[in-house]
């Protein structure tokens, strides 16, 4: 079973996405902040990262950067990332674009399209 790391501080989003991804057949590890997520990627074998942009302490963009740095140091394979945001902020958009993440979603997104994106980037697309 493939493992997805979900990083978000919003209970409603965590509950909704976790339930959906379990239903589709993925193992989901939930982290509520960037630091927790960085620690988790060191211990677990993650196939996909889904991360909110706005989070307390460490932003989603910084979290992704740090995880990439660590993966590179370990000479591991880059983990595909999906970023989520509640609003379209131009500066954040530009930063996310520079990061070249696999996908970028605006909340509230359609869950069917979300699952399609997850399957595509995790390598399970039909």
């Amino acid at each position, binding site marked *: 079973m493939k493992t997805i790391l979900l990083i978000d501080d919003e209970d409603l989003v965590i509950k*909704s996405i976790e339930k959906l991804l379990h239903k589709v057949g993925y193992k989901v590890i939930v982290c509520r902040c960037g630091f927790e997520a960085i620690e988790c990627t060191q211990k677990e074998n993650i196939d996909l990262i889904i991360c909110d942009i706005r989070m307390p302490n460490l932003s989603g963009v910084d979290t992704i950067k740090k995880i990439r740095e660590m993966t590179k140091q370990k000479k591991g394979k880059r983990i595909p990332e999906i970023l989520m945001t509640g609003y379209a902020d131009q500066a954040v958009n530009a930063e996310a674009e520079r990061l070249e993440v696999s996908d970028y979603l605006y909340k509230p997104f359609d869950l069917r*399209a979300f699952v399609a*994106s997850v399957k595509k980037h995790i390598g399970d697309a039909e």
Partner: protein
Amino acid sequence: MEYFAHSQKEFVYKYVVMLSDVDQFKHMSFANHLKLMFLATDALFVSCLKGDFLEKNRFKLLDSRMQFKKQTTAGDQILIKINSSEIATARFSLIYTFIMEGSGDLVNLGRQTYEIISRNGGFKRVVSEVIGPVLNPIQVDENHLLYKY
């Protein structure tokens, strides 16, 4: 990079919480959050409906509900995203996602259902005929959205 185009199909109304909106505890009251939902609806219809539509028709509110998620205070900038849902012959629903502009935090989830009534004769109008062009571009399938409204 790919974007989900449909997730950007929404009408967005921005509101800055004023001192007059907050109570003695410096929080915006629930009643004002409700008022904000109506302000956003007005903004949608006034900016998108053309001609004398509003002189000839009126909107009848059938149902309105809101799930309050987070306090706001004076100076907070709130973005209200509006999508249409369940567009039927004689009625339609609007769903509202309130988020804080700075942090992206979810503030409220709202839902309203309307009918359109002709001022001349008081008969129900066919929604798709009269405001289809306004509602269709922002229509979503509510059953598959991230939040439950």
